[in-house]
């Protein structure tokens, strides 16, 4: 199978998986009672109107009077036309709400991802190069610490120390400051730090263990015998093979955090990003928005897994497309 066919097969599968996941979400949400209907009935009763009629009216307005499959087909059509409806909990179209929130999520996710991708393997390889020295122990200790400490717990404590007691950073996130400003950098320091601490641990551990294996590999001897400098040897000969198993961990780790811990970090630090948007949509049972964000997260997860697979095949020439 050629690369092209492999990719298209993967993409197709990704689309199928997204569809299934979103369908499950849709069904879960349809099973829940819709509070808007009940509220309308209350309202109507207050006005002296007929509550049943009012409830019917809302159902009609929200398309809830249609049979489930019709609503589902509508929903599917909307998914692919990118018209994800109106979000009642934020009073804006779902797509706009998601885009707006993404703007803030990206502001901490991008530096966090970049730092993890760069620092994780670097520190891991450095740790391996200095295996069993105090530097290695310090780095490993840090990795385990970051891995094990609950992000939200770490976040609230750091915020208390640096925000409230030391007053080094603002307690309240200000969304209006320009993206590329010192102020923004300062207010994003803690969330990024907390997330990097959380994600870097696993990356470091894997890259340390893997590169420890590779730095004692015969090809490192070959490289040395060729006259390759240690720096170049690590950069090319250790790092590269380490990236193969690492890519799995890296993507997996980032995804898991992106879909889970980032929500808590947004809550703790008051960042109006996607996680909080989703959470609020959920507790306000804003069906359209919940579906929209689920769709988005599923998309990210599926794309992430796809990238992971592709990166894996690209990084490791020994893997052929037929194997997977």
């Amino acid at each position, binding site marked *: 199978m050629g690369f092209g066919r492999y990719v298209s097969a993967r993409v197709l599968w990704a689309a199928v998986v997204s569809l299934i996941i979103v369908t499950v979400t849709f069904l879960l949400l349809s099973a829940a009672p819709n509070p808007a209907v009940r509220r309308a009935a209350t309202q109507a009763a207050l006005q002296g109107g007929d509550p049943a009629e009012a409830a019917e009216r809302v159902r009609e307005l929200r398309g809830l009077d249609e049979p489930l499959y019709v609503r589902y087909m509508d929903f599917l059509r909307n998914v692919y036309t990118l018209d994800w409806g109106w979000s009642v909990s934020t009073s804006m179209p779902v797509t706009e709400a998601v885009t707006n929130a993404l703007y803030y999520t990206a502001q901490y996710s991008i530096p966090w991802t970049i730092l993890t991708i760069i620092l994780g393997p670097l520190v891991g390889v450095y740790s391996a190069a200095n295996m069993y020295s105090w530097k290695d122990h310090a780095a490993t200790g840090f990795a385990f610490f970051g891995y094990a400490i609950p992000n939200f717990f770490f976040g609230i404590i750091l915020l208390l120390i640096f925000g409230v007691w030391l007053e080094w950073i603002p307690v309240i996130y200000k969304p209006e400051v320009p993206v590329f400003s010192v102020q923004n950098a300062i207010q994003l320091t803690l969330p990024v730090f907390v997330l990097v601490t959380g994600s870097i641990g696993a990356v470091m551990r894997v890259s340390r263990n893997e590169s420890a294996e590779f730095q004692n*590999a*015969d090809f490192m001897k070959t490289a040395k015998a060729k*006259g*390759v400098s240690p720096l170049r040897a690590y950069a090319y000969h250790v790092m590269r*093979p380490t990236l193969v198993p690492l890519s799995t961990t890296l993507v997996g780790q980032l995804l898991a955090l992106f879909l889970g811990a980032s929500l808590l970090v947004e809550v703790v630090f008051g960042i109006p990003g996607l996680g909080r948007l989703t959470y609020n949509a959920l507790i306000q049972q804003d069906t359209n928005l919940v579906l929209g964000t689920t769709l988005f997260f599923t998309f990210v997860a599926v794309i992430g897994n796809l990238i992971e697979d592709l990166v894996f095949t690209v990084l*490791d020439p020994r893997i052929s497309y037929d194997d997977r």
Partner: protein
Amino acid sequence: MSADQPLLEVENLTTTFSTDNGTLTAVDGIDFSVDTGETVCIVGESGSGKTVATESITRIINTPPGEIEGTVRYKGRDLLSLPESELRQIRGNDIAHIFQNPQEAMNHCYTVGWQIVEALQIHQDVSDDEARARAVDLMDRVGIANASSRFDDYPHEFSGGQKQRVMIAMALVGDPDLLIADEPTTALDVTVQAQILKLLDDLQEEFEMGILFVTHDLGVVAEIADRIVVMYAGKVMERGGVLDIFDHPGHPYTQQLLECLPEFGGTGGGISGTLPDPYDPPEGCRFAPRCEYAEEACRTGEQPEEVEVAPGQRVSCVHYGPGGNPSIVRNDEFGPIDGDGTAPTDGESEVGPADD
């Protein structure tokens, strides 16, 4: 370089490793030399310190945990006192290495071409195109068919023998004067082995290289060696010309090694006992605990001084030393069955262009 100065001269080379369990002495004060155009074989069981000794020459082993003492003179320069950066100039350029397992010795993430070019470009300022041309040339020279198309293939797409050829090509990029070959044929099957040996032989002439060849396979030794250094547990037991030693092995250890070879009328069995603990080597002769001729004198003091038993052949054994009786161990009837002391294999196989 003066005419009488050897290409490589190793004196009192000692390599130790500090580990959690104490200090491990892998090579314990050995001397040997290699001349231009000459093939010297270091022979010994696995674990006797051969590989460490050769890797100590250009300090390929990691220091720390390793620690290298003694002198290694290459064309008169002491390599061990050279700064790392200058040493890097010598590695791969003047002194090249090839290793036992070509599968592992190449980085599976890069094409073979990339790896050859890397070696080339480290030492020479050549453009990518030129480097590629040179690399293809070398690959061609070491007998890889369709070299230019295989340049972009990954190591896993080559067979074992081909990989070793690539390794050799990689070693040749700097037109080295000394090639250190660490059991280059051990991982290969017998027919391929012969082809590689033949290739090395041809290349030695063409490139006028000295070859330091490490092996535990005396069959190979017989085929290519000019001189032999027999090592055991970090010490040199015996050294001399290949014919001398095959005809008249002096040291009991050498004798037992040769006995293992069926071609030499040996039993084909191994030597009883195991290598001594490298953390705590025995006193006296290292081989004494396994030696059938060992006496009390063998078990005290240092490893005995080497004694010249024949021109160019020296043995480190109490029985040859002052007050010793060589006849205890000497067994002149020992020797190859066919008596000519040359290749036990037919040696006729041509070096084919490929073995796939």
